[in-house]
């Protein structure tokens, strides 16, 4: 159940998630107020002025996911650190959060203006993270005031990194079968067990985890716990994936002491919180857009052209075109779903959308490597063009698309049940 952003890596075939305001704060739309349009325009100008004074030009067009996914890259970049600090001080990384939580107390409409203006100049939100997208909204809904004041200000500055401890070796698609023990030891909890596929756990300062507080019931025995990764007994080990990425970790918890106050919500209510959190995850999923290199020029170069300028290999061409058309229809579908969602549509299509997306971009990644031929089979070395090596890694990486965030099969189950109303066994 990894978030889609967790696979951020500087590959060609990656997904970007549009900045979206977290849901909180007064739900007033400034456009509804008298003079709202005027205020919006003033605010937009204010944002533009501030951005032109504060956004480091060297970061223009840079994908923010690189820094989100790699603490070392983030620490090493002076520009990134300057940009992060400027946005943190302004509270605009989490614009709708109250000022007490490190936000700017802005309306959703104003948050949207900030996102639009960032996008317009090729800037990214340096605060965007697991913390802002998933834990923040969860604490705002379920956390105590003390928990919010402890954690939200440091999420809104991106000083601390969070990881998500959900999956376990025995609990993947069937997440609720998780077993990591959490025992009440009077003035603290004792946690022991193992998590896996935890994105960035080796770089994370904190972990929000699902733990088992009652073994007699499945869903009703799960609690939601915040764990300091520096606690004695926590060990994160990176896992090497087929693409060479070491972004995912397995995390071992050996009798880790956790303060009582770190439990979010009530004991054994963690599954409900997790479901809500996964809705935040899915709402980010629905914003995915694909930014892909056109296949045609590469195919022309690698496979040759016929007298009419078409890709010479008719079989490969037919398959490339078929995939490209599905990709075009997929982008139309994202636009349609977003438009429908804005107008109060059913909003139950995310599972369908995710499967269409993973299928189409995986196929595309395969086609790209096929077109590259032997050039697409290199792991390292100057004998292979850098672009081709990237494409190869991207292909390997893309296999995760139909596994994380709810596998292809799980999404089909969800579609069958929720969208189609098919019966359970």
């Amino acid at each position, binding site marked *: 159940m990894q978030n889609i952003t967790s696979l951020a890596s500087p590959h060609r075939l990656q997904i970007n998630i549009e900045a979206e305001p977290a849901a909180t704060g007064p739900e007033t739309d400034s456009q509804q107020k008298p003079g709202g349009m005027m205020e919006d325009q003033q605010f937009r100008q204010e944002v533009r002025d501030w951005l032109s004074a504060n956004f480091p030009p060297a970061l223009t067009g840079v994908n923010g996911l690189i820094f989100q996914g790699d603490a070392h890259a983030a620490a090493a970049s002076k520009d990134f650190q300057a940009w992060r600090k400027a946005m943190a001080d302004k509270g605009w990384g989490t614009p709708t959060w109250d000022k007490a939580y490190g936000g700017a107390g802005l309306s959703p409409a104003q948050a949207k203006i900030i996102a639009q203006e960032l996008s317009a100049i090729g800037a990214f939100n340096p605060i965007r993270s697991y913390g802002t997208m998933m834990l923040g909204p969860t604490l705002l809904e379920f956390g105590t005031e003390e928990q919010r004041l402890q954690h939200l200000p440091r999420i809104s500055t991106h000083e601390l990194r969070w990881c998500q401890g959900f999956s376990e070796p025995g609990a993947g698609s069937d997440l609720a079968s998780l077993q990591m023990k959490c025992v009440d030891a009077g003035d603290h909890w004792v946690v022991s067990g193992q998590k896996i596929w935890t994105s960035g756990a080796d770089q994370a300062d904190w972990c929000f985890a699902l733990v088992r507080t009652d073994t007699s019931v499945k869903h009703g025995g799960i609690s939601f716990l915040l764990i300091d990764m520096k606690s004695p007994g926590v060990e994160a080990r990176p896992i090497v994936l087929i693409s060479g990425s070491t972004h995912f970790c397995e995390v071992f918890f050996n009798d880790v002491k956790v303060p009582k106050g770190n439990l979010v919500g009530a004991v054994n209510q963690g599954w409900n919180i997790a479901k809500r959190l996964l809705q935040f995850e899915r709402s980010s999923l629905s914003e995915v857009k694909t930014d892909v290199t056109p296949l045609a020029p590469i195919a022309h170069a690698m496979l040759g052209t016929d007298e009419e300028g078409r890709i010479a290999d008719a079989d490969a061409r037919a398959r490339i075109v078929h995939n490209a058309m599905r990709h075009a229809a997929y982008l139309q579908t994202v636009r349609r779903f977003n438009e429908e969602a804005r107008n109060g549509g059913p909003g139950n299509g995310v599972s369908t959308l995710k499967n269409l997306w993973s299928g189409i971009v995986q196929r595309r990644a395969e086609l790209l490597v096929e077109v590259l031929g032997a050039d697409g089979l290199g792991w390292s070395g100057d004998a292979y063009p850098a672009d081709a090596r990237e494409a190869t890694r991207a292909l390997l990486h893309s296999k995760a698309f139909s596994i994380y965030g709810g596998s292809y099969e799980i999404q089909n189950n969800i579609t069958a049940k929720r969208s189609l109303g098919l019966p359970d*066994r």
Partner: protein
Amino acid sequence: MAVLNEEQTMLKDMVSQWVRDRMPVSVARGLYDHSGGGRKDATTGFDRDAYGEVAAMGWSGILVPEAHGGSDFGAFSLGFVLEELARTLSPLPLLSSAMIAVSALRLGGNAAQQSAWLPGLADGSIIGTLAVDEGAHHAPDTLALTATRVANGWRLDGIKRPVADGMGADLFIVAARGEDATMLFLVPADTAGLTREPLDQIDARRPALLRFDGVLLGDDAVLGHGDALLSAILDRAYVGQAAELLGLATQAFETTLDYLKTRVQFGQLIGSFQALQHRASEMFGELQLTRSAVEAALAAIDADDPQLPSLASLAKAMANGTAHRITCEMVQLHGGIGMTHEHDAGLYLKRSRVAEQAYGSSSFHRERWARLNGY
């Protein structure tokens, strides 16, 4: 489904209601005899009185300018009327006449031609259709029917087949190979030298084979010249036919889904089996892609989007593929009953195959899209 405005929502509700009341699948079934083929006594392949009702409700005039008696309500609206009617395989010449013939006159017709034909097309007293194909495949670039210059006009020689709704049409928009360019003519059905005969096609819709044997026409019959005009008309045909396929596929899917929720084997509803659930989920995904492509293409017609040719071929190719897959699954998932003429699955399969070929197969449209997009 895209977001509709109030008028569009009213129109859509009105169409759904009328289809339920007047065009259940039994109407399409009525075109067949007991052997599973088209009734030999059928003449036009559609019911002119039913089309009169459609016209009275204004649907045949949706693309016609108000000055000529229409509502100018836009292709997007006509698209969902076509989609809704196709859910029950409604045998009506709305695509041929209201979408394609009207578009041809709007795109190519001079003031006199528009005044002569559009009011009748709008009120349903005239049914028009496009006569473009001549052989086994949709191939608008290689027309064989010739238009030869003669004193005071033109002479047409050749054949057209299959011409949708051709047995009941009053006006043919005929694509011909002129002396140096593609030409389009307005040819009334009663023109001397033009004969027609019905084709017993698997959908029982009675398309026509037209024979042009020295048909003489005046200059006022020339709708226009050039491949660009024909392409623009065909773009509307592609999108309209795709909208019909979307409606057909959507209903075929929903009927199949209902069966999965009622059919019991091994003591349980077969819709509880994961293998079948996943096939249903995948079909649902294909329908989503197709709906997006069709709606985008319809909107592109109304917006005069220069991308229309590409969007139209995308819509038709997607709709072809999806309707093909879902009608196959409709038969398969119904099992033995789906193989019988008594069941509707076969009617959907047969109509789908005709609509898939009509105005370009999937490979035609993938090739066209590929060329338009630099592949």
